[in-house]
Each structure stands twice: as structure tokens, then as C-alpha cells.
């Protein structure tokens, strides 16, 4: 096994940027770009949105432990689901929330998988956990104090996507 590379902010930024752009471009044909606001928002809490949100979550456990939340507004989540499954608005309405939840769960799984595979290849072997979904309006997710947090903002058309990464520090 190669010597482990230190997990620092530039490495995390590189992995998550690649993961988000690659997954969304491959699966939906839309390519999110790093938001111009990212630098200004570093270290600040994720702004609370008053629009309905869907947050996909997948963790990674092993030599490196953490969790990534992917925040999407509901309209973007529905757009991505439609593109992913070849469904129109009416079909999405008929299919119900469960289909959108599952699609966002899978997009999150793929994104975290791509990120985690980068960590594995950098010498930090870990495995994925099963996805879960949060839905709601006007909510925030707060980490506990023993983790480091990195939030990255992406733009895709008129939509915003936030990748919120929590990595547990070494004991």
C-alpha cells in the first residue's frame, strides 16, 4: 500500500470538485461549476434557505471517517431526477417524492463514492455507508465539535448546490 497522503483542504477541495462535476455531468448532462462565492463563504455557516431543500447524506468509514451532505433546492432535485430517469414533470408528480428522494440519494452516493475513492487511492482506505435523505425548509445542520467542516458551493444554471463535508479528526 502506498504511503498515505495528508488529507488537507486543497486535497479535499480537489476531490469534491471533481466528484460533483463528474457525477452530475455523467448522470444528468449538467455540469455544476464552482461558485464565485465559495472563497467568501469559507468558514461561515451555510446560509439557511427559505425554499424547500433536499439534502442527501452518505458517510465513509475506515481509516478516514466522515460524512458529506449534498444540499439541493427541491426544483433542482426534481430537474436532476427527471434528467437521470428520463421523466417529465407530470411523470415526476405521478411518481411521488420517493422517486426524487431515491434519485438524490443515489447522486449523493455516487458523489461521495467518487470523493471516497480519491481518499482510498491516496492511502486512506474506507467504505461507504447507505444514503439517507433530509427534506425541509428553514433548517440547518450543525456538526459536533470533534469534526472539521468544509463547505463548497456550486452553481448549475439558476440553481445552487452545496457540498458540506465533515471529517472526523484523528483521535
Amino acid at each position, binding site marked *: *500500500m502506498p504511503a498515505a497522503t495528508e488529507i488537507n483542504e486543497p486535497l479535499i477541495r480537489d476531490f469534491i470538485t471533481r466528484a460533483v462535476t463528474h457525477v452530475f455531468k455523467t448522470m444528468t448532462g449538467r455540469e455544476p461549476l464552482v461558485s464565485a462565492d465559495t472563497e467568501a463563504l469559507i468558514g461561515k455557516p451555510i446560509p439557511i434557505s427559505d425554499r424547500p431543500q433536499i439534502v442527501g447524506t452518505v458517510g465513509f468509514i475506515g481509516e478516514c471517517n466522515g460524512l458529506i451532505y449534498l444540499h439541493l433546492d427541491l426544483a433542482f432535485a426534481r430537474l436532476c431526477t427527471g434528467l437521470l430517469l428520463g421523466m417529465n414533470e407530470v411523470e415526476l408528480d405521478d411518481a411521488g417524492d420517493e422517486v426524487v428522494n431515491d434519485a438524490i440519494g443515489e447522486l449523493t452516493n455516487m458523489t461521495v*463514492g*467518487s470523493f471516497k475513492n480519491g481518499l482510498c487511492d491516496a492511502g486512506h482506505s474506507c467504505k*461507504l455507508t*447507505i444514503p439517507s435523505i433530509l427534506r425541509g425548509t428553514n433548517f440547518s445542520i450543525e456538526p459536533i465539535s470533534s469534526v472539521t467542516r468544509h463547505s463548497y458551493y456550486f452553481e448549475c444554471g439558476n440553481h445552487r448546490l452545496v457540498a458540506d463535508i465533515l471529517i472526523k479528526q484523528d483521535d
Partner: protein
Amino acid sequence: MRYKVLTVDDSKTVRIIVKKAFKPYDCEILEAANGVEGLAIAAKENPDLILLDVTMPVMDGVEMLTKLKSDAALKSIPVIMLTAEGGRDHVLKIAKIGVRDYLVKPFKEELLIEKCSRVIDLKPVNEGPAKAKSILDPADILVVEDKPAIVQQIQEGLKQTPWLVKGVSTQGEALDAITKQTPDLIIVSLSLPEETAFTLFRLIRTNVKTKYTPVFALVVKTETTQQQQAQTLGFSAIITKPIDVIDLEAKIAKAMNLDTSNRYYATEGQVMVMRLPEACSPAAMAEAATYLKPKFAEAVDAGINKVVIDIHFLKSLHMGIIKLLFQAMQTCRDLGMHFALVGNPQIVSECKGFEDTRGWTFYDSLDDAKANLGKNSAPQLAGALS
């Protein structure tokens, strides 16, 4: 044979995408949401291929794969991993258990199909008799030739057909064109630099979308070594330069399994017209003979009992044509149809030279024949000739 593909993934989204990807192909998709369900379905249905995720509740993909490979009845089922777990060490560990391929999510549907088609012989749903097209239907023909004059010659030669002939000059352009729209037939020049033509042929045959597409080799008549090589490799037909356009058209129609009866038979109002072309080659006569009885029977079935046999395009007669005409007249008599002949002065004159055809009566035009059909006693004429 209809293949069964089992997709084992806890994500309904992935299972829907897999189903969507396989929709154009003749196979049945079975679904399982975890390893336990996957093993049960595998034992019951004995699928031809399993697509397996890793991270799943109840039983994960690694455990399912291990159990599958230790079961004598199931271990021969090929497995392709389809998972977001893609670290090098992880892939190597799973590969050791025994998988045919490993596809890391995210994935393109085309890539999934390409990998699966290396394991099972995927066939498009529409393949078979239902797809039979007519010579009058449009079709896309791709010509891969670096000499524009040859492409132009083919386009010019086939311009009377409804076929769209597109020319490209390199392997890259050909692959791009094939990706954008799968052609109905591909003609590849063997004079492309180096081994390009043969490499391209192999790529076409490994692409699931074009593995059954007819591919012709275009080669100089004297290049016999290349022709043999093309035949060995499995090209559908060899077209030699200089190109005989009539031969090319016939080969294309045959390779695409086109219904060519429209060349010889048409229903015009309440009359069936059998028409022989100017270039009545042995191949054309054989083609016309093949459709003769079915087309006449079809006409009778539709309530048509008059036939005009139009040979005014012919420049001369020979025994093959006379035999075909006798066959047509006999068929009319068998089916109780009235018929009349249309010819030109040359044909009429030649008919007088043969004992069997001396008594034939011809009309000068199709309209005359149609107008008089039934008034004269045509079946009597057939009787006189037999």
C-alpha cells in the same frame, strides 16, 4: 433466446436506469434490492448476467458474490460489479472473488451496455422478420473512403433510391458518425491507410449497436489478397472498383433484407402490373420469380383479378425471360386472373421468331392494356401458349 439480466441494487434509481439502458435490447430485467433477494432470484431464475452493487442493506454485494461463487449451481453466472466503491485496493479484492467486469458509478448507459454486450450477445428488440423494410423505405448508408470521387460515384449511382449516402474519410469520423446515428449499412474502403479498414471493421463488430449492421468492403478488383482477408474477417460483401452500381444496389438490398417486390410488382387501381426492368439480369429475374406467386395471390386476395405484364422496357428477349413470362401466365391461369402483355416493337418482333411465343398478343401501352383487359379473352391466349 431472450437473456435475463439481474440487477441487484438497493437504489431504485439505479434499477430504473439499468432497465432504461436495456430497453432497446431483447432481454428481461430482474430486480433485487439486496444480496438476499439477489441470491433467491438468481437461484430461481438462473440469469445470464448479474449486475451487482456493493453497499446495500441486509446483505452487501461482496457477501452475495462470495456466496454465489461458492454455490455450485450459481457460480458460473457472470457478474459485473456496478458500484460507487471504486478504490484500487477494493476493486482488486472484489476482482479476486471472481467478476467479469467492474463498472464504477457514475456511469453512462452506453458504457454499461458495451460492457454487458461483451458477456451476453445483446440483440436489438426489433431484429427479425418484423423489421423487414421495403426497397422504397429510406435508409442510411455510411461510406468510409478517403477518395471523394468514389463517394460521389456511389452517391450518384444510388441517387434514384431513397437511401441517404454519407461519406467520411477517416476512422475517427466514421466512429463519430456511427455514434451519432447508427447506419443501416456501412461500406469501408480497404484502401484506407495501413490497416484502418480492418481495425474499423473489428470496432464496428464489437459495438453492440453495429454488431449486426452489414459491412461491405470496397476494394480494387485486382487486390485479391485484400479481398480474401476481408472475406476471412467476415465482411458482409465485397464491392469491387470500378463499381457496378446495379450490382451494388442489389447487394445492399439483399444485405439489408429489403422487400424488393416493388421493383417488379405494383397495384395500379384494380390492376396488378408486373414490370420487368431494362437490365433484366439473372439476379433480377430470380428476384421477380421469387415474388411472383405471393404477389399475384395477394392481389387476388385483395379482389384484383387483372394483370398487365409489362415488358416494354426490355431491349431483347432470351429464354430466361420467356420462362418467367410463361410462369407468370400459368400463375394467372391457376388463380383465374385475366392478363395482357405490353411490349415494344423489338420485343414483338423477337416473339414472332420463337415457336412458343409466336401467338402472343401485345398492347402498345399500359393504358391500352388496362382498357382492354377482360374484353379480350386473355386466359385463352395463355391456354394457347401452354
